[in-house]
């Protein structure tokens, strides 16, 4: 999966779980600025875990501040799997 494909796939998952549009979202976009709160991120993490067959522990989840943080962590996990 290319980086672009990963980004699109994660955008789809976030849009689905948080019921929002991610049009125009950049890597440095802060999650709270697009109305994604801690409850949304718990649901997003659950969906990412299922979709990519990975584990996101709570301490990692709490450190996601930007969309790019999520992508970087997924890339790190996927490169080890």
């Amino acid at each position, binding site marked *: 999966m290319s980086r672009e494909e990963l980004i699109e796939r994660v955008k789809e998952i976030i849009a689905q779980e*948080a*019921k*929002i549009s991610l049009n125009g979202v950049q890597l440095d976009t802060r999650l709270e600025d697009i*109305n994604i709160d801690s*409850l949304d991120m*718990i*649901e997003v993490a*659950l969906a990412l875990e299922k979709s990519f067959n990975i584990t996101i522990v709570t301490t990692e989840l709490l450190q996601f501040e930007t969309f790019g943080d999520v992508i970087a962590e997924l890339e790190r996990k996927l490169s080890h799997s």
Partner: protein
Amino acid sequence: MIENHKHSVRRVVITGLGVVSPLGSSVSDFWAGLLEGRSGVKTITDFDLSQCRTRIGAQVVDSDLDAQFSRKTLRRLSRASQLALIAGAQAIEDSGLDQTDCDFNNVGVVVGSSIGGFTAAEPFYRRYFDDGTANPLIIPVVMNSAPASNLSIRFGFKGPIMNIDAACASSAHAIGYAFNLIRFGVVNTVLAGGADSALSPGVIQAWSSLRTLSERNENPSGACRPFSLDRDGMVLGEGSGILVLESELSACNRNARIYAEITGYGAASDSYHLTKPSAQGLGEVMRLALASAGVAPEETDYINAHATGTLWNDKTETDAIKDVFGSCASEIPVVGIKAAIGHSIGASGALELISCVLSIRDSVIPPTINLNIPDPDCNLDYVTEGKRARIVTHAMSNSFAFGGSNAAIVVSRYIPCSPETPKS
């Protein structure tokens, strides 16, 4: 002897009302339905109850309800929270409560909700037991304190907020507690009332298996028959009633319209049985409420009864009223409106108190519907002929709960008393 605090504490008035009910999603629709003697009880078709002895309920049937929330917001709101937010918005608008003349840091929210968490939990747990998925929203959606919290978050009230769960008396106690918060000077304003939904397959089945529900599935609107010899149980429902309570000074300072004054609150326990009421316990809260209001039994113009339509409640409540009101018991109209709006558990007391406020405002009391056959054990004046014109100066609203937690509230016509009356 209960000390009468009436003149040493602040007066508490009602300046806003909001209602979502099976008779309509506004105060005016609710009131018109009650006065016309309509019933909001229908056959439930939203889910399968074919294995249940009872298949009727009093649903809020407003088709626009969901449309008032975004898809994202809706997922985070139990039915009880949705109903609370809609009724709360009505009450706030009705009272004209605004940050320009009211410090929202000093506004509390006290809501009674008791069964809504059970109903909200069902789809979550069904999924969990089916495929192991535990939705992270379960706790924030299901917790019974969510209606109060959602009201605080939505409108920015930063005073004390809490849920009061005392089963069927939850919102009566919520209003009583809010009354005390204002009366004793903790806060000036409280959004108080109840919001609850008892309508889900598991909850209806649970109450049915306890043999508390009417099984007249073939006649939904005639099913619940308070004080009637042929009564066979209550009908579950849902709804929300929210009131804006304020100190008299706060209301007068902002020129708010005052509907009525809460003058008395009685709270006590049967200390007897989890499901069977005690006439002594029911009578005790009526006495306490009258004493705290400084109202004599013979000054009471109207009693809105708990009147569930169960065999035990209606007879026990009648006995308690006779004991407390003595020779004047037969002179006081006693009305049960649960035949019309069902029993919404945590919301019932608030909806019933709002009907008392409207009786004071309009000098008319609604009928007890479906009382077809008089019961020799229930021989008070239950207003069966239809709505009745009556000047109501003092009304009592009774709420009695499983577990023996009982409440009675006295609400009175507001009469400014000079020279203590604050300048507006």
